[in-house]
């Protein structure tokens, strides 16, 4: 069945062109995945609330934190506020997109029947998932560029002691953090109704931003830090700070993130319903 094959003789007595003549077939997987990723990134960036979460809030936290750090009097163990806050805000941005945006977008895709309709298209489920991951990485990359730019503008000076360790540590933290939060986000979206997902994903984001050890080091939380350090938010924040402040790799935090990623994936695989 190709576009060039002639219409069967005698099938249509009239000579009108057969505009709807069947010629079915799925596009190659790579093309479908890229199309899906483009579509989802575009929709994420078009959505005002998600943009607020992805860029505006992290920028406010960074600028406000740097400006107000001296007055709050938090002990940053001799480091400049901008050097501590920038890696934390990068971690916050990853969390906002991978968890909150993914959960809300997927929750409403289920509600609106988008996932159902795609389920009757040639795009297979694993293609849809790959498309989602690519879209998510696109948006995270954009966020990191913007926020790192703002940080540099505010005088951020990441440790230059061991650039290779810094980059490796940050990349690992972002990859594992994205995986952990996206798996948890999909778990919430797949288990709850869209409205409940919206509420819970925003609430969890706010709670973790305020008390989850993501923007500020866990050491600033006093006695609570022994609990907080096991949260995915704190693990991501600490891994980013260790990479960009101390230029070393925080193996323990990366392991915590990996464990959350596994937990989230198992929970999602067991409970997620596409419809």
């Amino acid at each position, binding site marked *: 069945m190709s576009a060039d094959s002639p219409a069967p003789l005698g099938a249509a007595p009239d000579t009108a062109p057969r505009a709807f003549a*069947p010629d079915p077939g799925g596009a190659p997987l790579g093309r479908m995945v890229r199309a899906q990723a483009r579509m989802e990134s575009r929709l994420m960036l078009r959505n005002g609330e998600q943009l607020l979460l992805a860029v505006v809030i992290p920028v406010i936290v960074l600028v406000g934190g740097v400006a107000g750090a001296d007055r709050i009097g938090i002990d940053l163990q001799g480091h400049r506020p901008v050097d501590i806050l920038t890696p934390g805000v990068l971690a916050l941005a990853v969390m906002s997109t991978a968890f909150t945006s993914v959960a809300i977008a997927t929750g409403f895709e289920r509600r609106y029947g988008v996932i159902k309709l795609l389920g009757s298209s040639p795009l297979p489920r694993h293609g849809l998932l790959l498309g989602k991951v690519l879209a998510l990485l696109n948006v995270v990359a954009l966020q990191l560029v913007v926020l790192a730019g703002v940080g540099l503008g505010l005088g951020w000076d990441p440790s230059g002691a061991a650039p290779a360790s810094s980059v490796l540590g940050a990349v690992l933290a972002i990859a594992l953090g994205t995986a952990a939060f996206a798996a948890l986000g999909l778990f919430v979206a797949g288990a709850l109704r869209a409205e409940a997902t919206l509420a819970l994903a925003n609430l969890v984001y706010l709670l973790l931003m305020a008390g989850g050890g993501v923007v500020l080091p866990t050491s600033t939380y006093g006695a609570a830090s022994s609990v907080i350090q096991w949260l995915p938010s704190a693990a991501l924040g600490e891994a980013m700070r260790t990479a960009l402040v101390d230029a070393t790799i925080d193996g323990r935090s990366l392991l915590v993130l990996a464990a959350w990623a596994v937990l989230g994936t198992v929970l999602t695989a067991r409970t997620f319903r596409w419809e």
Partner: protein
Amino acid sequence: MPTASPAVEIDGLVMAYGDQVAVDGLSLTVARGTITAVLGPNGAGKTTTLETCEGYRVPQRGTVRVLGLDPQRDRAALLPRIGVMLQAGGAWSGVRAMEMLEHMASLHAHPLDTAVLAERLGLGDCGRTPYRRLSGGQKQRLGLAIALVGRPELVFVDEPTAGMDPQARRTTWELLEEVRRDGVTVVLTTHHMDEAERLADHIHIIDRGTVITSGTPAELTRGGRSATIRLVVNRPFPEGAPESLRTDLGPETEVRQIDEVSMLIHGPADSATLGLVSRWCEEHDVLPQTLNLGQRTLEDVFLELTGRELAS
């Protein structure tokens, strides 16, 4: 087109949700190149049956074959060959109409020209409108465009004209007829008799999860034991006229007064009934101006088989 296997073959399908049986031993066949209507009241099991063909639901009992394939086992091979129009939804709320259509086109190997298709469906004016701001009829037309854009062999359309104005309904019907002419098989569900009568080559009437009768529109409405008689008289009926007429005609007849000078009589399709109505008019001193034995409709067929009215 190969015509070896039917487009759809369902045999003894059973689907239940909890203890609610939605489909109860349903069997039907759809021949290739036809428009086949699955007609029935809301809740008859139409959508569940369709969704089993589309691979969304696993048959609990019975077998389903679509284009000779098993919608579950051969899902990957089947999906590119069919088009699906859902009863509602299916798009992101913020996506623009044309953007959505182009996205669905990009998932196919040889899609139709989206601009031409949108024009045909009257979506030219709302191409940049976000989905959430489209009217009900526009959403339906976009859904139909999405079902057709991949040049499928077979399309499933669930209540295609629900929420459309009469003009859009006619356009949609003409489009579906053109699609059939070009060799696409169309399976549509509807609870509108006029839609089934006008469009379908073959109709399966289903009720309570099972096919109660099948045939071409002509076969289904031909003959039969009952018909609708329309009676219009020259001056208002006396008080209690419907009851009195029913007493004369017998218990198998239904009489419904439409206004003060007209009635619909549903009963045995024979001249004896016409004679009785005519005599009743004489006795009650009204003159029939219209007394005709209407053509049997699908509504009559449904009423005869189930004792209930189809109209929702």
